[in-house]
């Protein structure tokens, strides 16, 4: 095995440079760093654009039977500043994983149905909808920590929000500080 000492590799002609062939393994040894300052496609994106947000206090006056934007004003982390004003905005086209804890309780009277889903660009995404209905409209649901999860295929600048809905016997609901929303890019 020989060692090639050069400071730069450029294509002999054109603009495409290929390293290795199909079936080869290109290894970056332990202790070495590969630094990307350009555009990486096909690798290096999983786990990026990570964020985790929560509420700093109660979100009150959530109306009965109404898809309501859940607000988040406390950031645990936001690696690429993609989260602001209660929404995640995709910095680039790709597939993104999202999960949220829709923590909600009936402030006045119990309910019989809880639902959550992500909204993409202002429209509800039914494939991420998560709902529980009690048969016969039995109003015995008081508090829920309801999980909403999904992978969304986003274009650059598409934005994602969390909406929740609680069908109560009467009155309003409250989303306590335990509510949370997190996600990251997977591809």
């Amino acid at each position, binding site marked *: 095995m020989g060692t090639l000492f050069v400071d730069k590799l450029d294509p002999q002609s054109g603009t495409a440079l290929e390293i290795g062939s199909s079936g080869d393994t290109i290894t970056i040894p332990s202790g070495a760093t590969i630094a990307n300052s350009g555009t990486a496609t096909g690798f290096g994106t999983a786990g990026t654009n990570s964020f985790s947000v929560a509420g700093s206090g109660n979100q009150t006056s959530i109306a*009965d039977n*109404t898809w309501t934007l859940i607000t988040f004003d406390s950031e645990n982390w936001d690696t690429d500043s993609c989260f602001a004003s209660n929404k995640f905005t995709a910095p680039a086209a790709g597939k993104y994983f999202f999960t949220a804890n829709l923590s909600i309780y009936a402030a006045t009277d119990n309910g019989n149905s809880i639902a959550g889903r992500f909204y993409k660009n202002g429209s509800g995404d039914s494939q991420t909808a998560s709902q529980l209905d009690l048969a016969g409209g039995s109003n015995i649901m008081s508090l829920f920590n309801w999980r909403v999860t999904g992978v969304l295929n986003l274009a650059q600048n598409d934005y994602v929000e969390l909406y929740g809905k609680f069908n109560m016997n009467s009155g309003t609901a409250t989303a306590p500080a335990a509510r949370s929303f997190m996600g990251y890019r997977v591809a």
Partner: protein
Amino acid sequence: MASLSTKVKLYCTANSKTADFGPEGNVSLQDDSDGKGPYIASWSVSGLAQPSDSDLAAHDTAGNTEETNNTVRSTRKAAYGDIGDQLDEIYKDIDAWKVRIKAIKDANPKS
């Protein structure tokens, strides 16, 4: 002021229709948490036009009554207790059960 969902339900009932807020329902209400409050995001009640603000306002008083009575119903239901226990109570002494139920109703009157 009555909630939008209550007024929508009453508006539909008054026109012999039923509002369904479920995932495949005919009405969807939304609140974007921007201070503007809930609004009707989609409406597909067959044979009935989406209500105007004045249509909804006409049901505000009845809506308040309905919501107050819903709370009363909930309080009464909790006080009545388990239906199985009540059947046992009726079997053993139906008159005593009637007295107890009446006392609960009297203590929690509807509007």
